[in-house]
């Protein structure tokens, strides 16, 4: 990578052809709020770019060292805040691995259903923003309207529209409300309708194709060497999906396909996400059909909070509650890594415990930070206008990237 200073160097050329440095972001609408790109321009062409994330850094990992294991969940919500349930699940799985806990089957199914809903919401958001930034406002409205149905269902399930904190170590907070499964299935028509509309509006649209095809191409080799996973990796021909390759939860029992493309451009990344949403709906369909009634939290008294009826009326329940809240769940000393397919790829949590109620370390492998690391190389040589589809198709989520 050549340095920006090199381009700035006045080499004695008399004509005004020197490169110009401009700031894009961090408060530019197309930068999704929090990324700054320091670009050296030669006319419209980007000769060099320095992508600087970090404006949404909250110190997630440090925060986790000062709270109990259970109190980490709200922090994980704020990682990838368009699919918080997936973060919840990833973190819960890491701690459960350390505890050697078996999560009840129904909880696993609920995690799958809620997680796939969150994934659809995540992808819808990405497509909506990408479409809008390229001028397709209608696409934005259609996608967000469909996403709102998902938020409604997640609100019914968890009590919150965005930051759910729904998972618990050992299961999920509570069972699905009455008639919830039917309402989820009832939303499929609208979601599928929106997806079909988007497909018809954009996939054969000359302007959209010109703006995205052959733009921001990442080869399979580059994708692998930069550690790309998820939809972006699969758009470049990396056939890797954690749900398929390392099935966790009950994914082994569900039938779905993993779309892979090999052009590696913005169009492929858009298309892979579109197809994946159809697959997610397929998964939800099957999971809701297979789900059986049963407990949604495991029976381990030293991990799971007692029911409130016991807490308020018996000393045993009261003590359990107090010890679990004040001391925290005592997780055996050791370390564990659990990883799931997040909205943007392999979302991993590496946790270390010293046997007390406080985590020693909670490290998150954020897929989009790894994807964004390559972005400077991707936009080099393109025109300024191409930053928009390239950045949009990577779906950088500040909360997760900067933590």
């Amino acid at each position, binding site marked *: 990578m050549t340095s920006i200073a090199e381009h700035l160097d006045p080499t004695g050329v008399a004509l005004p052809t020197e490169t110009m440095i401009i700031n894009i972001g961090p408060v530019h609408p197309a930068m999704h709020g929090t990324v700054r790109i320091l670009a050296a321009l030669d006319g419209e062409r980007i000769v060099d770019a320095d992508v600087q994330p970090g404006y949404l850094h909250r110190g997630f990992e440090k925060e986790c060292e000062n709270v109990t294991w259970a109190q980490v969940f709200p922090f994980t919500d704020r990682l990838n805040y368009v699919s918080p349930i997936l973060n919840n699940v990833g973190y819960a799985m890491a701690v459960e691995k350390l505890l050697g806990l078996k999560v009840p089957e129904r909880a696993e199914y609920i995690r799958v259903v809620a997680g796939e809903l969150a994934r659809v919401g995540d992808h819808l958001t990405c497509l909506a923003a990408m479409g809008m930034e390229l001028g397709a406002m209608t696409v934005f409205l259609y996608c967000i309207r469909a996403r709102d149905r998902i938020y409604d269902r997640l609100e019914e399930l968890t009590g919150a529209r965005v930051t759910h904190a729904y998972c618990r170590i050992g299961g999920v907070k509570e069972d699905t409300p009455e008639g919830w499964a039917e309402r989820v299935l009832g939303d499929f028509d609208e979601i599928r309708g929106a997806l079909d509309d988007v497909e018809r509006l954009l996939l054969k649209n000359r302007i959209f194709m010109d703006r995205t095809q052959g733009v921001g191409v990442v080869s399979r080799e580059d994708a692998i060497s930069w550690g790309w996973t998820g939809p972006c990796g699969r758009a470049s021909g990396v056939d890797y999906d954690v749900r398929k390759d390392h099935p966790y939860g009950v994914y082994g029992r569900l039938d779905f396909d993993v779309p892979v493309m090999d052009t590696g451009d913005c169009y492929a990344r858009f298309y892979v996400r579109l197809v994946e949403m159809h697959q997610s709906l397929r998964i939800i369909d099957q999971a809701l059909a297979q789900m059986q009634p049963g407990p949604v939290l495991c029976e381990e008294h030293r991990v799971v909070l007692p029911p409130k009826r*016991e807490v308020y009326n018996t*000393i045993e329940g009261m003590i359990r509650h107090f*010890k679990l809240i004040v001391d925290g769940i005592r997780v055996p000393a050791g370390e564990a890594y659990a990883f799931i397919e997040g909205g943007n790829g392999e979302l991993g949590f590496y946790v270390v415990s010293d046997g007390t109620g406080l985590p020693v370390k909670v490290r998150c492998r954020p897929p989009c930070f790894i994807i964004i690391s390559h972005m400077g190389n991707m936009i080099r040589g393109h025109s300024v206008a191409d930053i928009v589809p390239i950045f949009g198709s990577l779906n950088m989520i500040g909360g997760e990237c900067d933590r």
Partner: protein
Amino acid sequence: MSADPTIKLTIDGREAQVAQGTNLIEAARSIGVEIPHFCYHPGLKVVAVCRQCLVEVRGWPKLVPGCQTLAQEGMEVLTSSERARDAQRQQLEFTLLNHPVDCPICDQVGECDLQRLYFDYDCMPTRHDLARLPGIKAHPIGPRITYDAERCILCWRCIRVCDEVAREHQLDLKERGMETVIATAPGAHLDNPYSLCTVDLCPVGALTETAFRFDTRVFKLTAVDSICPGCATGCHIELHSYGGVIRRTTPRYSAEVNRWWMCDDGRGEPRELQGSDRAGRGKVEGRPVSLEEACVAASELLSKHKADELILLVSAQLSTETLWAARALSEALGGVQVFGTARPDWQADGVLKSADRNPNSKGLELVFGGALAGAADLEQRLSSGTAKVAICLDEKTTNPALAESVEQVIALVHRDAGIAEWAKVSLPMAAWCEMDGSFVNKDGRVGRFHPAAPAPGEALPGWALLAKLAIGAGRPLDIGTRAEDIYAAASRALGEAVLPPGDFGPSRPPLLLRFANGRG
């Protein structure tokens, strides 16, 4: 425990070597195995009433209490076999039968043995839905202690503390069976000088310190190691603070000094210091000024007078480091005469309280040796009229004659009242619980204390103020800028046999009780 291990036994399959006469709880503890117990305490006689420490011994027909059973050669103890675990669990179930759902309003929460043992050894929901027996609540069993009979699990620890530590039989059991309560004799109170040790040892929230009741949740407290300044015994204590305020004082185990105990008077020491009249700013002729300004005024006074016109008053209440700085100052100013003062004696009680009410009399003696003049010399010097300026380091012990006989007084004070009101210059001084330092107790044992609360306003440790004065007077002291440096300097000068360099010890960071392994 004797240093001569003579008995070999196995506990949970692991070999342990212990001295003759060691019980199973201690034997297990020596290899890191916990046997749950309520009534047993290493400092008290064994009564084996709580039945919580039942363990299995292979080949013995019945389970035995670990507290009362002594280790024997070749014994095979199982502390967590099916039978032992069952007995421990059932015992907890019985103990909890009538326990009130009080945790949200109980002061013991966080350091409650019942909570901890239930969670670790039982943790099963209740199996009955009968009404719980009511009991006496919030009963002032003594002037400093509140008793709650519902929470009491009848371990008799409080009875034994009174009998064996305070040597006064003030508590006993009243009634029988389910109605048994801890009680004093009619008309009597739990008011012995060590009564608060019963609160320390109470495994539940049955006995609580009235002054600390509903003050702070225990798991929010931060503990620092300290030394009690109440008398020359120098009990090892812990100061527990929250929000920058010291909330309570508890004894800290020290095999040589105070074991597990301390007197009730000592616990009031930090409380005595609190109050709105703590000095946080300097004063010149009664007018509040910044510390800097007050130091300049004081230094000017010092540089204007010759050494024989100055006197320095130190006391056995000060830390060794402040005393060392005082000695350095007296030398730097050209040999100022130093007078030692002290709080008057009280009655020693043969348990922990010493007659000498000063924590650092030994330190004073070590630092100044024969150069120190006493109270009688002070009288003489004051009446001679040769003392023009006095530097006074302890308002508590100051001779009232000072005001009339000396022209100007530079006072290092804790409070704005008293000497600070008439002194020419007063400088705010941090108290022992707000600074790092050490006392030397009557046996010559160095005790290190740590800051438990921030000093008010601009207040600084005595040695830091003296160092500032010396700099202002153009005679800087070569003593270092931290308490450990000063201690090291004193130790080098006085001899390592007198002040062993290692005894100051490493700095211990404050400990949040919440995650301190079941302590908070």
